[in-house]
């Protein structure tokens, strides 16, 4: 579904003394249809640049990117624009990625209008459907980003992306700024929607716990290169590269000191309301 071959992206810095930084250094990998590939690494390792380069939000200097049978690197500007709806991205800071002057309804309708997807009435109906799908409701339609919480803004960003029914989604740390309970809501939502829409996903994160929960395979990035890639359980439980080992150790250092004698507490039971005000523990 996604095939990236020998991708390279350089940045040059400095005005007089030009220096070239190779942010993505010959990266190759593929993602199967409907699969989520996790991408982990510390800040500054090039994860975000890689994600953006695949979508040509940053022009790569070398390499080939094939998305759903189309060679993205060979597309002209106008062809690329027509292809855009099929590959989308969500960002770490949803608040910053939304236009502060637009109401939720306008923000979600915008991609539909740009890509001329239906009449005004169609778009209106579509926006309402999308808003409900991401767990918001009618009363949010007239709000602006500053009137919403971080989690709600990320839901709006998701609705905008889903409006275009993309085949490929790059998620760049969409929950790293959120609290854990909100993070769990958004992660579940992304996972469910990914399944419903049969989306292929590149999930960028520095949180190994989140990556484990979200992806079937994982790639570890260090200084612009992928140093290890494989099934998530294999990579995290039996890391082969010393850097992956270090990442896993850093994440697990606390666990080792935690009391091992007691098993982790089962999650709080879900309660079901059998009649008004009468709750009973759900039997699994």
């Amino acid at each position, binding site marked *: 579904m996604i095939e990236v071959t020998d991708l390279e992206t350089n940045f040059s810095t400095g005005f007089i003394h030009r220096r070239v930084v190779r942010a993505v250094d010959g990266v190759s990998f593929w993602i199967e249809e409907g699969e989520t590939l996790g991408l982990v690494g510390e800040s500054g390792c090039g994860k975000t640049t890689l994600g953006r380069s695949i979508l040509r939000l940053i022009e790569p200097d070398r390499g080939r990117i094939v998305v759903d049978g189309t060679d993205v690197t060979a597309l002209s500007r106008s062809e690329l624009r027509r292809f855009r709806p099929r590959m989308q991205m969500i960002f770490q800071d949803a608040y910053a990625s939304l236009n502060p002057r637009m109401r939720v309804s306008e923000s979600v309708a915008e991609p539909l209008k740009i890509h001329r997807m239906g009449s005004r009435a169609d778009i209106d109906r579509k926006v309402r459907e999308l808003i409900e799908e991401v767990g918001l409701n009618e009363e949010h339609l007239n709000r602006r980003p500053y009137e919403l919480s971080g989690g709600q803004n990320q839901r709006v960003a998701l609705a905008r992306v889903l409006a275009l029914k993309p085949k490929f989604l790059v998620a760049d740390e969409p929950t790293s700024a959120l609290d*854990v309970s909100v993070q769990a809501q958004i992660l579940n939502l992304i996972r469910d929607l990914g399944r419903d829409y049969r989306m292929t996903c590149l999930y960028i994160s520095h949180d190994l716990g989140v990556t484990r929960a979200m992806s079937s395979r994982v790639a570890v990035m260090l200084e612009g290169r992928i140093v290890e890639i494989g099934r998530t359980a294999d990579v995290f439980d039996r890391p082969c590269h010393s850097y992956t080992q270090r990442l896993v150790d850093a994440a697990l250092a*606390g666990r080792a000191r935690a009391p091992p004698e007691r098993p982790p507490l089962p999650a709080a039971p879900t309660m079901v309301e059998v009649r008004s005000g009468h709750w009973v523990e759900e039997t699994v």
Partner: protein
Amino acid sequence: MTNEALLEVRGLKVGFPTPDGLVRASDTVDLEIYPRETLGLIGETGSGKTVLGMAILRLLQPNAAIEGEIRYRDRDLLTLPEDEMRKVRGREIGIVLQNSGTSLNPVYTVGTQIAEAVTLHQGLSGHDARQRAVELLDAVGIPDPVRMAGEYPHRFSGGMRERALIATALACRPTLLIADEPTKGLDAVTKRGIVDLFSEIDRDRSVLFITHDIETVEDLAARVAVMYAGEIVEVGGVREVFWDPAHPYTRGLLASLPERGMRPIPGSAPSLITLPPGCRFSPRCGCAIGGCNREHPGLVEVGPGHYARCMLYD
């Protein structure tokens, strides 16, 4: 713990008047910090944990309505004259504020900023203060401290800025250190470094470690307090609270961790202006019973030194 508390917060209420009504950021908070202990304070955005940390050093904006008592070594910090308070800040109680990027002054070198604190509180001369700044940077693990002391904050990475701030807070060897989200926004390896640094520095001082990162608290603290909607809803030993949580909110918080099933708590936290009647967590609580939306529960002892604010234990 049988020894006497170093800091005791009693019935602390903090409100901020706004055009929409009073925001009750902290409501009747009781908390003790003992000598040489690290107390974790966890809670989600807007639960009032930062306000609590700032209130201890009287760093809140002047229009904040503050009630209650904060006893530190037989003095009430809330009624202390300002010049006395200035001696407490930095010298006896240090603070590492949130957002290391904005806490450092961009137009002075890092060394100058650390030396400033030393000169001010310990009366060292320019040269000695400078020397001390370099020592402090070295102690918090900054490589090549002599050179880095002469660099401006923008040359420091996020993790290094955090270290520099910790160095500043430690400059006068305070007995209590308040650290507000020192690991926020750092990647796993950098975070590990900061956590290790804290586990080294907390041996001879008390630390109030404010965070929303549950794992970090598990690593560093012996006791933990959980805040929800301006109140402490559970407090106790880290083992008891994280492995056998009593309050349904704490249980929900732990269950939302990816490692523990990633099951979210339904709904969202209430506005601090219009709080729900009765227990503040009751509208989202799967265990809510009849009286939960009418009676406001107090902290009940559920185990030795382990308290929870829930009707289930009344």
